């Protein structure tokens, strides 16, 4: 923060409160107050169906969580879904690396790879539902053509649905991660990269020992923000499978939605939503703790 000169005029300007007032008001009303309400609600049996009769039940919601198989399943599914983050980073980095220096039409190519990210999630979901159609879809059509007799059921298979959803998510996220990597690579001194490409024999080494460490802060950032947004992902899963078949893709965000707005168990849903918050925090802590080993600033 730039230090302001200490002439009287800069010391305290109450007009500043006027500037921030609307935003503070809005954030208080739509973030702070609801968050505090949720903190109270998680200790109640509040249900939208039983209006007016709200009981404080202490930690009962959390005891229930401990024995709730659906909840355990949703945590597991969320963790599997988190794998999309490192995978899409691993796919995105080589693309960004090549686009940064070894191709013509960089901007055009950047646009091509980025398009899936900005598209409407629900529309994307329906396209992939048809592409993944187990008996007639073009993906299984292609698999059958290359000799795979019984291709997977993708979104409609209990064992495969979560991975099919993951594939869609990776497809969406690769372009985003690529853009960020590209921005970060463009700040790496050109001479370093040029030296690397010319001496072909040591290309792999220069990537491994120069480029990857140089962009490691970006990787770290993409991992953290990627995990946080993956934990909260809702639309693409709700629109493709709605958590099914059975509970095969019922990640936490969907479980919370269903508990609250299908079964109207608002108190219990609040408790689960704070578990989601706890997982976000845990993932961040683990990342911060691990960063010293591999992030070079």
């Amino acid at each position, binding site marked *: 923060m730039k230090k302001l000169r200490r002439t009287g005029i800069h010391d305290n300007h109450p007009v500043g409160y006027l500037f*921030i007032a609307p935003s503070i008001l809005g954030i208080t009303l739509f*973030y702070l107050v609801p968050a505090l309400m949720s903190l109270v609600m998680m200790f109640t049996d509040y249900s939208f169906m039983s209006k007016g009769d709200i009981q404080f039940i202490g930690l009962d919601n959390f005891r229930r969580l401990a024995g709730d198989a659906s909840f355990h399943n949703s945590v597991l599914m969320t963790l599997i879904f988190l794998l999309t983050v490192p995978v899409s980073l691993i796919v995105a980095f080589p693309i960004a690396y090549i686009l940064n220096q070894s191709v013509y039409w960089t901007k055009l*190519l950047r646009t091509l790879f980025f398009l899936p990210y900005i598209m409407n999630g*629900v529309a994307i979901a329906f396209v992939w539902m048809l592409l993944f159609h187990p008996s007639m879809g073009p993906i299984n059509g292609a698999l059958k053509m290359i000799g795979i007799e019984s291709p997977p059921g993708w979104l409609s298979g209990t064992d495969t649905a979560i991975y099919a959803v993951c594939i869609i998510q990776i497809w969406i996220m690769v372009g985003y991660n690529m853009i960020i990597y590209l921005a970060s690579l463009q700040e790496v001194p050109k001479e370093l990269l040029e030296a690397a490409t010319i001496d072909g024999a040591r290309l792999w080494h220069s990537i491994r020992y120069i480029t990857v460490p140089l962009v490691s802060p970006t990787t770290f950032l993409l991992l953290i923000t990627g995990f946080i947004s993956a934990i909260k992902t809702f639309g693409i899963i709700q629109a493709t499978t709605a958590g099914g078949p059975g509970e095969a893709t019922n990640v936490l965000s969907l479980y919370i939605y269903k508990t609250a707005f299908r079964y109207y168990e608002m108190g219990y849903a609040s408790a689960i939503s704070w578990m989601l918050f706890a997982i976000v925090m845990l993932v961040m802590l683990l990342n911060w703790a691990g960063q010293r080993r591999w992030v070079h600033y």
Partner: protein
Amino acid sequence: METTTPPVLSPGRQTARRAPQVGKWLLTFVMTALGLLLLLPFVWMISTSFKTPLEVFEFPIQWIPEHPVFKHHANVWTGTGSFTLYYANSLKISIFSTLGAVTFAAFAAYGFSRVKFRGREPLFLLYLSMMMIPPQILFVPKFVLFNWMGIYNSHWALILPGMFTIFGVFLLRQFFITVPQEISEAAFVDGAGHFRIFARIILPLAKAPLATLTILDFSWHWNDYENALIFLVDKDLYTVPLGLQNFVLENSVDYNGMMAAATSAMIPMIVVFLAGQKFIIQGIASGAVKG
């Protein structure tokens, strides 16, 4: 970090110049092919929207239908459950939300960066910390709150909260603090107040970040599905994502219609993206790289 920069490379560079160019074209070709492969789902979607039901799952895929059919697109836009209404709703919500969000964010960002007042830094930190709260925590209490406020099942349930963006304040503040303080001081000496400096000096300088925020914010509202799903009930209030979902529920085997509807849901974003590509990419990169 330890990097041994090789000695000057110019001799090697001369000989190596021609070979990389062939290689560069080859890589360009490979990457273009890969990029197009990534976009095949979109091509398939558009192609299917012009086919007959029998041709949907034909394999091998006929990318350009022999006798293109236009009636699926016509169905999407006319008759009951026409997308015209969903488009109007989405536009209304996105425009009002974005206008509010950019205005309030600009004011707040100015306050947090260029006006000195007591408690500014702790307030800003508290403000930013709200970004950590996952939306899933807020849905249930917002549902209760909106019922109580009487805005549940109305567009206000999306527009009012949509007018506040913590990320936007952060993004604009990042820019505002880079404007030299001397500019404000000179204006002060000339007798200008903060509102004048804000409107006449800072805002005109911030056209690029304002454009970035406008485009990003608009696209979030346009694509927003979760809030609409939770807070809107009546069909005539539906936004494009909800309308699309409803279309699929009601015509579950009309795959051509589904793809026509999906195509039209994507068009506005393609237009916005191509028009504001520079700002979108800048905004996303600065938001993520600067954290």
